[in-house]
């Protein structure tokens, strides 16, 4: 089991994580039972019923996490009747949920007696609550990780397992003009986006799969070429003014969209960043900033899930499905075909970042497709954890 403790600004490699986990083991305290773990999330989950459609991706993700705490998911086919480590004790739709420990859980009773989930908490509130000890676990924006760490919040990060990409909208001018798409792609300065907006908590993305998963990410260039972008754009007769949409509830997407617009304008491309708050605005944007979460650490299913998502979002042809036994060459070729089609322009991979309260012990950042490991977490009310090799 990987365990990441991070208060550094740089991304932590898998090797470092293993080193930290090994170093921590000798001095670790013994787990104890009891206490209520307070988890704060940004989404407002209005129903745990899977048949009720989610309001947005954020709610869907949060509902899935709660679902994983209540039910076991031995297969990917969906929910089964097997109860999970917790059971729903209190439920206030969109506000609060209390999950009590399942004493009869076959995998063993969770360490904590209960998990209180506070919903619809803003990132700022979550950070404050973490600093004040009102929350034990909270997902925090990746761009705030460094600042949170500087404020004394324990930060845990997953592998960069979420792809932020620009997807051109089917039916709009860039979708039908490769030169237009190429000019936009060449104008994007990914390094600056990662360094400044993501505060170095991520990686520039040239391909769909991160390097730690596929090992071929370095084959996709990420450096901008504004001169070429300018030249390409100048070759487009009656070049339109482009609108780049972003989810108004996603500050990171907004910041990245605005930066891409600045890069584009620097290359002579007329582009504005625009919030897609309603369907009317949605229909006017030429491209959108999307988040594509990995569902698996393995490259083949991860790529397949990306392609499925892109097919749903942008009508991208997913191509033929690769077999489970597909070799890296095949995976690379399929990924490369998609990337060179420029219907989707990868921007960056970002990790999931969690803030942890001082009494939380044995937290492990979940990997792609995994749920929060709250059944393994215990609360240490005896005092702060002794310093580790990495803090």
């Amino acid at each position, binding site marked *: 089991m990987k365990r990441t403790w991070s208060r550094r600004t740089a991304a932590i490699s898998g090797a470092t994580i293993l080193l930290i986990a090994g170093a921590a083991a000798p001095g670790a305290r013994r787990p104890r039972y009891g206490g209520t773990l307070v988890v704060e999330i940004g989404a407002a989950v209005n129903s745990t019923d899977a048949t009720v459609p989610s309001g947005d991706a954020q709610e869907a993700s949060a509902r899935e996490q709660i679902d994983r705490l209540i039910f076991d998911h031995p297969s990917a086919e969906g929910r089964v009747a097997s109860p999970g480590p917790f059971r729903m004790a209190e439920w206030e739709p969109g506000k609060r949920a209390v999950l009590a420990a399942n004493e009869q859980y076959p995998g063993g009773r969770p360490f904590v007696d209960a998990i209180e989930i506070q919903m619809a908490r803003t990132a700022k509130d979550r950070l404050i609550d973490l600093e004040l000890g009102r929350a034990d676990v909270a997902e925090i924006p990746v761009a705030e990780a460094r600042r949170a760490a500087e404020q004394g919040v324990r930060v845990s990060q997953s592998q960069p397992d979420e792809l932020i990409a620009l997807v051109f909208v089917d039916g709009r001018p860039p979708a039908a003009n490769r030169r237009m798409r190429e000019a936009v792609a060449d104008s994007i*300065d990914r390094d600056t986006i990662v360094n400044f*907006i993501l*505060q170095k908590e991520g990686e520039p993305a040239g391909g769909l799969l991160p390097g730690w998963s596929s090992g071929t990410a370095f084959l996709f260039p990420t450096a901008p070429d504004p001169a070429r972008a300018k030249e390409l754009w100048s070759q487009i007769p009656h070049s339109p003014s482009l609108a780049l949409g972003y989810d108004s509830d996603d500050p990171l997407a907004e*910041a990245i969209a*605005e930066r891409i*617009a*600045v890069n584009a304008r620097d290359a002579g491309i007329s582009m504005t960043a625009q919030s897609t708050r309603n369907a009317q605005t949605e229909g006017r944007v030429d491209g959108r900033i999307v988040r594509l979460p990995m569902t698996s650490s393995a490259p083949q299913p991860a790529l397949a899930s990306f392609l499925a998502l892109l097919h749903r979002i942008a009508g991208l042809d997913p191509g033929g499905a690769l077999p489970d036994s597909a070799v890296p060459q095949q995976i690379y070729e399929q990924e490369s075909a998609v990337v060179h089609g420029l219907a989707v322009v990868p921007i960056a991979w970002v990790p999931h970042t969690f803030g942890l309260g001082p009494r939380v012990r044995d937290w492990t950042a979940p990997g792609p497709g995994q749920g929060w490991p709250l059944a393994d977490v215990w609360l240490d009310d005896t005092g702060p954890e002794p310093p580790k090799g990495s803090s």
Partner: protein
Amino acid sequence: MTFRSKVFWIFTIALVLSVALIATGVTIVAGKALDDSNAHYTDALVAQFEREFARRGQDIARRVQGIANAEGTVRMAIDLARPSADPSVYVDDARGVALSYHLDILDFVGNDGTIISSAEYRARFGYKMEWIRKLGQAKEIDWVAQGPFLTRIDTQAGPVVSLLAVSTVRVGDKNLYIVGGERLGREFLASLVPPEGMRALLYLNLDQNFQPADLVDESGPIDRAERFASFVRQERSHAVEQTFKIDWTSDPKTAEVFHTLPLFGRQSELLGILLVGSSQREIVILERRIEVLALAAVMVGIGIALLLSWWGAARVTRPIQKLAEGARAVSEGNWNTRVDVRGGGEVGQLARAFNQMTEQLVDQRERLVQAERVAAWREVARRLAHELKNPLFPLQTTVENLRRARQQNPEQFDEVFRESTGILLSEIENLKVIVARFSDFAKMPQPELGSVNLNEIVRTVVKLFEAQFGAVGRPPITPELHLDENLPVIQADQTLLHRAIENLVLNAMDAMPAGGVLMLRTSHHNGSVKLEVSDTGTGLTPEESGRLFTPYHTTKQHGTGLGLAIVQSVVSDHGGRVSVESETGVGTSVQVELPARPPHQPPAGRDGE
């Protein structure tokens, strides 16, 4: 138009023009005063804007300097001065600091001009702020001395015009520039407090073409901004203060007068235009009040002018009128007329002269009447003597013959007596005829009016004298009748007219002893009829023509001098007129004009004279 009317209107026009001129003058002067007042308010608002502008600039400079002096900024400067500086950690700092210092614009700019953090355009990090770097390299600018300035700056929402100040934090040989400021826009205008009826607009010169959305007041873009397009273009061409007026509707109260103040940047580029608008509502209302008052004054003035003119005209013309009435009375024969005019002016002198003149006229007329009366009596005496002398001489001779025959030839006395008594009776008869003629003239009867056709009378008279026109032993006279057959019937005494025309024909025949043409012509005009009797006789001298109608005056050896006097008497009794035109050797023409109806009956009593 009477003299009084003329004087009245002259007075009235002069007074009305005077009042109107005064009212117009007052209106113009009041309008000018209002315009001056408006200009004063405009200047005050412009001055207020400039003061607010300067105050804001100083305030911004103070706040930017405060940021530069803050510990966090100094630490940032020290951190960025390190060789391995990581500016990314400061990428979001500007936004928070800007909020703390209430600045719209805040940029932390590195020594090379790279934007480290931007509050107004977060995504601009890493790009260059060229003007800072260029100025910095060319010369170490003392930004404190430079002071606040206007400039165009890009923001997330697009370019804006901002009032900026720059401060620097120097660490070693590297500068950290802090660029802070406020947007120039409606918030800035909201800080101005224009007087009632005035407003301040701001046009931000951010586009090559006029953009209505860039013209704002304190509440945002204004309506119908396109009305300013031409003035903004003019301002951009000349960049000088100008004043213009916009009529928003046909109602002049909705008009506004705008004064422009160009706003320049550091490079003297036009960045904005302040437009100070002044509603014309109060001015128009005031002007209308003044106009109404002026109109009322004019109306009252006209009323007073009319009264004064009437009084003045009456005062001036009353003596003239009296003089005119006096002259008219004199012309009508009332020679005793006197004009009562007081005063010593020209009119008074004229009145006195008039009175003196009438007195003299009366005096002279009386003397003339007396002289004419004496002359008439002399003429009557002469005529009587003449008329009586002719029969008296045969009477004297006959009586002397009788006496002589009685003394010298008694035997023949009976025969002589018989012859003499016959002569005596004949001459006495002549005397009776003469007396009867005079008596007849004295006893001219009153006309008895009836419907009369003048043409018929003329024909009857001519027929009466036909035998004499061609009598044996005398040269023939040829009558010519030119009678107007459309002659209207008039009211007249047929007998008297017959007698008058007989006299005229007789006179004409007497005037043609050698024969000639007797022409009788009738005509009508304006309801009156006219008879002209002309002859081709010897004519009359002017002296004879002047005395032609004098009773008992005659140019004939055996005439009584009563013929034309009778004609004149008849014509006068009918309200008509008789005149004579004569030329010696050519002939004489007598014109008689008679009205259709006599205006009044002649006075009675002639019969008794």
